[in-house]
C-alpha cells in the first residue's frame, strides 16, 4: 500500500490529508518500512514525498498562513483533539485557531481533552468492551460541555464518538473541521 501511495502521489506538489492518524502513519512509519525493503530507490521516494504531506490544519495554518477562511457556523462546538494530532503531529492550537475565527461559532472547552476516545483501529473490535468504557468517559465529557457539535480532524475518532452519541440519542453530532470551515452565510458545503 505504501508503494501504491508513492506511485499515486508521485507528481503531487502538496498532499493534503484530512486525518491526523493517516499523516502519522506516513511520517512516522513510511521511512522505516521503506528502509526494511532494503531498496534505496523506495527510501528516496519516501524522503522526496514527505515534505509535501500536510495534515489539513497544517496546510491551512502553517503552509498557507490562513486562520480565517470566512466561514459561518452558528453552533456551539467542542473540539476533540485526537491522539495522533496531539502526540505525533503536535498540531497544538491550529484546529482551535481555525474554529475561533469562524463567525457565529461558540467554542466550548472539553474536559480531559488529551484522553483517547478508545477507537484505536482493531482495538475497538478486539477489545470492544474496554474501548466502549473509554468512549463512555469521552461522551460524558462531551455532553458536560453542552455543545451540540463535537468537531475533530480524525474521521476514525469521529466515527467512534459519533457512533455512541447517535446510539444514545444525545442529539449531539460529530463533524469534521473541514465541514465546518466549508459552511458560509449562504449555506453548507458545496455538494
Amino acid at each position, binding site marked *: *500500500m505504501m508503494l*501504491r501511495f508513492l506511485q499515486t502521489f508521485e507528481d503531487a506538489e502538496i498532499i493534503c490529508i484530512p486525518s491526523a492518524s493517516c499523516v502519522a502513519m506516513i511520517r512516522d512509519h513510511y521511512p522505516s518500512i521503506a528502509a526494511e525493503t532494503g531498496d534505496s530507490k523506495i527510501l528516496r521516494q519516501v524522503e522526496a514525498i514527505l515534505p509535501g504531506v500536510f495534515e489539513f490544519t497544517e496546510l491551512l495554518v502553517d503552509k498557507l498562513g490562513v486562520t480565517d477562511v470566512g466561514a459561518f457556523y452558528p453552533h456551539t462546538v467542542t473540539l476533540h483533539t485526537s*491522539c*495522533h494530532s*496531539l*502526540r*505525533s503531529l503536535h498540531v497544538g492550537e491550529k484546529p482551535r485557531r481555525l474554529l475561533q475565527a469562524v463567525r457565529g461559532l461558540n467554542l466550548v472547552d472539553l474536559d480531559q481533552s*488529551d*484522553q*483517547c476516545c*478508545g*477507537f*484505536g*483501529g*482493531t*482495538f*475497538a*473490535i*478486539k*477489545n*470492544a*468492551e*474496554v*474501548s*466502549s*468504557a*473509554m*468512549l463512555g*468517559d469521552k461522551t460524558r465529557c462531551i455532553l458536560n460541555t453542552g455543545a451540540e457539535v463535537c468537531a475533530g480532524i480524525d474521521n476514525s475518532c469521529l*466515527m*467512534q464518538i*459519533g*457512533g*455512541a452519541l*447517535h*446510539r444514545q440519542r444525545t442529539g449531539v453530532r460529530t463533524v469534521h473541521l473541514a465541514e465546518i470551515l466549508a459552511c458560509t452565510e449562504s449555506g453548507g458545503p458545496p455538494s
Partner: protein
Amino acid sequence: MSIRVGEAAQAPSFPDAAKTLIENSQLRRNVRHATGVIRAKRDRVVEELPDWQELRNAAQSIKAHTLQYLDSYLLQFEAACIAAGGKVHWAADADEANRIIVGLISAHTEREVIKVKTMTTDEIQLNPALEAAGITPYETDLADLIVQLGEDKPSHIVVPALHRNRMEIREIFLRKMKLKELGTKAEDLAAAARTYLREKFLRVPIAISGANFLVAETGSVCVVESEGNGRMCLSLPRVLISVVGIEKVIPTFQDLEVFLQLLPRSATGERMNPYNSIWTGIATNDGPQEFHVVLLDNGRTTILADKTSRETLACIRCGACLNACPVYRQTGGHAYGSIYAGPIGAILTPQLQSMEHSQSLPYASSLCGACYEVCPVKINIPEILIYLRKIVVESGQAPASERLGMKMAAFALANSSRLGQAQKLVRIMQKPLLQDGVIRNLPGMLAGWSATRDFPQVPQESFREWWKKRGKR
C-alpha cells in the same frame, strides 16, 4: 528452563479478563481516583524541572549504553560487590532463583523472613516457594501487606493495592490482624500496620529485597521507598538477600543523579523519595553482616538479543505509563494477568515468556501514545506494541477471522478499481442492515462495535466518484 512471570502463562486473555473487571464499579472508581491523584502530582513536579526532556534523553542514553555492554557491567558489579564483602549468585530462571534463596535461608535456623517491596520476587513467585519450604514471608510495604493479607494480587507496579479503597483495606486488617476495633481514618490504618509490622522488624533476622539500581563501578545497591519499612529491612536484620533483574545495573555512581530525579517524580509525584538507601557490601558491625545479591535473568537475555525491542529492558518500574494509560484506568492491573500491568506490562510480559504466552497483551492498547509521552527513559512503547503484534501475526497466532478480514482488506485496497467494486458491493450488502440511516447490528466479529455504537452507512457516492463527476473547474 522454567521462565515464568508470576502466573501469566495460565491467565485468561486480556479481553476476557477485562470484560469481568469493567463490570466492577467499585474497582473502576478506586482505579480512576488513585491514578488521577498520582497523575496530577506527577504533572506538577515534572513541570517544575526546565531540563526534564534533557534528563529523559540522558536516562535513555545511559540505559541504551548499559544494555549494549550489559555483560561487562554485570561482571564489574559482581567483582566490586564481592570486594566489598557481598556474595553474588546468578539465576537463569525463576526456579533457580528460588532454589538459591531457599538454600541461603536454610543455612540459618530461622523460618521467617521480612520483605521489602519487590516486583521481581512476585515475578519468580518466591513467596509460594518459601512457604513450600516451610519459611514464612512477611511483606512490610503497606500496599504489599494489604495484598498479602487480602490473599490478593498486585495491580500496579508502584502501588500494588491501588484497586482497594480505605474501607476495603480496613475490613482486611480487621479480619486478618484479628483486631477488635479499628478506626476509619488513613492514620488509623497506618497505625495498625505499624504495630503489626514493628514486632516483625525487631524479631526477624533475615530480609529479602529487590533493588532499583545496581552500580557497576562501586558494587552498590540502591533501594528507594516512601515508608521507611525498606530502611528497617535493609539495616536491622543480620542477613540480607537482594533479588535483582540483570537489567537494573547502571555504570557509575554519578548516573544515579539522573535516575533519582526521574524516578520519584514519575512514580509518586515526589521531588525525592523520603528514603533512599544505598549500600555497598558489608559494613563491619553496622547493618547486615551477611549480604547476597541474586542476579536474575528469567527471559531478560532473550529480550536483550532483539535489537528492535531491547529498550523494553530500560524500564525503571516507575509506573507512570500505567497511570497515564486510558486502558489501564478502565480495567486496573488484574486484566493483564501479570504482575507487570499496563503498557509496560503489555510489552514486557509476553517478551519475557518468549512470546509463547500472553499474546493478547500487545493488543491491549489503543496506541494513543500517552505512555511514551510520560516514560522517563523514553521507551517507545507504542512502537514495540506494533512490533510484537507483527510477531504474533507472523507466527500464525492471530485468530482466523482476523486473518481473513486482513486478507480481504489487502485485496480490496490493492487498487482503486477493486476498492470501487468493494464499495459498490458494501452499498448493496448494507441495505438489509440499515435502520434510520445507520447500522445498529453488525455481523460476526464486528458485533462488538455495534453493541455500543451505531455504524454510519457507506455513502451512496464515494469521494472518487464525486470528484470525477465534479470535473475540472
